[in-house]
């Protein structure tokens, strides 16, 4: 009884979201609608990308308009490894043999590592500046990857790369929509758990404080640059993992994953759901997919309504769905 009393409003909302996100696929599975299962998988993967961004943006206040760079790197890590595996040609033969792979765990590890490395480079440069410069620089670097992917004809260039068979995960039949969905749900749950621990940890406290008062953080002996760089790297790895999963979902990778539209979209669902909130990206991704599905069916110009909604949220309901429903965040405990 006291446990129920101690749950905050936000926890109730999160719980409700979980229930809905489990009920919908359950109904879809029982009534044999694999398309809906795929939609739920999409929500989970986009939410995962948003959880990554939320670390840098929500906790750290770092407005990265270039997170598509990591999303795309994750996708291309999958595309490159899988395409070499499916054509039985190695990636390189000298100085050592590097073959492709269709194993998801290996692909995920690669995706996260590549994204993290790119984040070290991009973060180290962008953190030398602040404010508006940071926004422009992150956007520019993502664009760089976009043009790079377009001109790298070996992997499809502008047309992208198709992977004929979904990659494998030990013990699962990933071609089965339900199993793949459950796999992505598991990954999302893990990421949410990580975000939750991080936000409450010493690192999270320091990162959040660095956002609010750089002078304070310096005065207590914390180097802001280091904290923010680590935050960007962690943030990038998770978004990169989402990119690999996204590519696997669609069995297709293209430069669009690096585009400014993708960066914008990831940020939009984090904001719509509630920036800095644990389930913000989940609520936002669900809303986004819902709008895309419902409104998109009504009008091919549904982006206008998305734009209007975003404008209204930014001007009048800054906390997004969860912020508006749950009120101020619970800080301690």
């Amino acid at each position, binding site marked *: 009884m006291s446990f129920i009393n101690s749950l905050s409003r936000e926890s109730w909302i999160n719980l409700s979201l979980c229930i809905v996100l489990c009920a919908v696929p359950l109904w879809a599975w029982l009534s044999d609608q694999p398309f809906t299962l795929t939609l739920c998988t999409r929500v989970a993967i986009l939410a995962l990308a948003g959880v990554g961004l939320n670390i840098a943006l929500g906790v750290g206040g770092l407005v990265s308009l270039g997170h598509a760079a990591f999303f795309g790197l994750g996708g291309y890590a999958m595309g490159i490894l899988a395409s070499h595996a499916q054509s039985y040609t190695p990636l390189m033969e000298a100085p050592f043999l590097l073959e492709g792979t269709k194993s998801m765990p290996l692909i995920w590890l690669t995706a996260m590592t590549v994204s993290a490395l790119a984040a070290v480079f991009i973060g180290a440069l962008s953190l030398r500046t602040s404010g508006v410069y940071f926004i422009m620089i992150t956007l520019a670097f993502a664009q760089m990857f976009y043009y790079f992917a377009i001109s790298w004809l070996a992997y499809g260039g502008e047309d992208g790369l198709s992977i004929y068979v979904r990659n494998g995960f030990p013990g699962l039949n990933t071609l089965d929509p339900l199993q793949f969905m459950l796999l992505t749900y598991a990954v999302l749950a893990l990421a949410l758990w990580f975000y939750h621990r*991080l936000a409450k940890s010493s690192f999270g*406290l320091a990162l*959040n404080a660095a956002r609010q008062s750089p002078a*304070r953080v310096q005065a207590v002996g914390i180097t802001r640059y280091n904290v923010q760089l680590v935050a960007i790297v962690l943030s990038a790895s998770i978004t990169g993992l989402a990119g690999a999963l996204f590519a696997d979902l669609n069995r297709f990778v293209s430069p669009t994953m690096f585009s400014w539209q993708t960066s914008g979209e990831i940020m939009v669902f984090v904001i719509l759901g509630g920036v800095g909130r644990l389930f913000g990206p989940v609520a936002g991704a669900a809303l986004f997919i819902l709008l895309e599905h419902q409104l998109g069916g009504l009008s091919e110009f549904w982006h206008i309504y998305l734009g209007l909604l975003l404008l209204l949220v930014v001007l009048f309901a800054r906390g997004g769905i969860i912020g508006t429903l749950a009120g101020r965040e619970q800080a301690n405990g």
Partner: protein
Amino acid sequence: MAESMLSVQGISKSFAALQASNNISLELKKGEIHALIGPNGAGKSTLIKQISGELKPDAGQVLFNGQDITALSAVKRARLGLARTFQISSLAMEDTVLQNVVLGALGARGQVFRFFRPALHDATLMDIAEAALQRVGLESHADTRTAALSHGQRRQLEVAVALSLQPKAFVMDEPMAGLGGGGSKRLTDFLAELRHEAPILLVEHDMDAVFALADRISVLVYGELIATGTVEEIRNNAEVRRAYLGEEE
């Protein structure tokens, strides 16, 4: 003869044509409160920033606890035990009182890169934080958002965060600013006790507090240190009266 904790030697700094600090030397000895006074524009803030590490001097040295810290960053100086409070409260406004103090504790102990353990469940950090809050009298407000505190409470919190660093010396920039009579008295009594744990370099305009607290006073005018001495010596110093105390009337 008490040991020197903090020693400023020949510090000079100019901004284009303006000489903000001109060959300043002073010492903060163990167990003392050393007040730094001077009219507005004298260069007190500039000097404080060079001591805390926010500004690099053009010439001169800063020694702390026997170590030359002139080349060290503000972050490193804080880790070495030099605690600074700000004239305009610099706190994480969205965080609670407790979170601000825990931040101080974890920063000083270099425990930043812990990702899984909740900071507020860490026994060591919590002990330090709660002790600091109790000493300044804010323990009942531990869960209050900093933005909701009164001005006086925020000044108390600034001091609490400095305490949580478990520092070897304090540099306090106008801690009395904006405090009413009661608040000033409480802080004065508090600082009088605190000096025995760690010496305090105190920048202040509140002359009652200065004369009540200071073991020694240094007077800064137009970037130059014109006098250093005990309260009596400074009170009787003609130059000081002319340059500063005279203007006060």
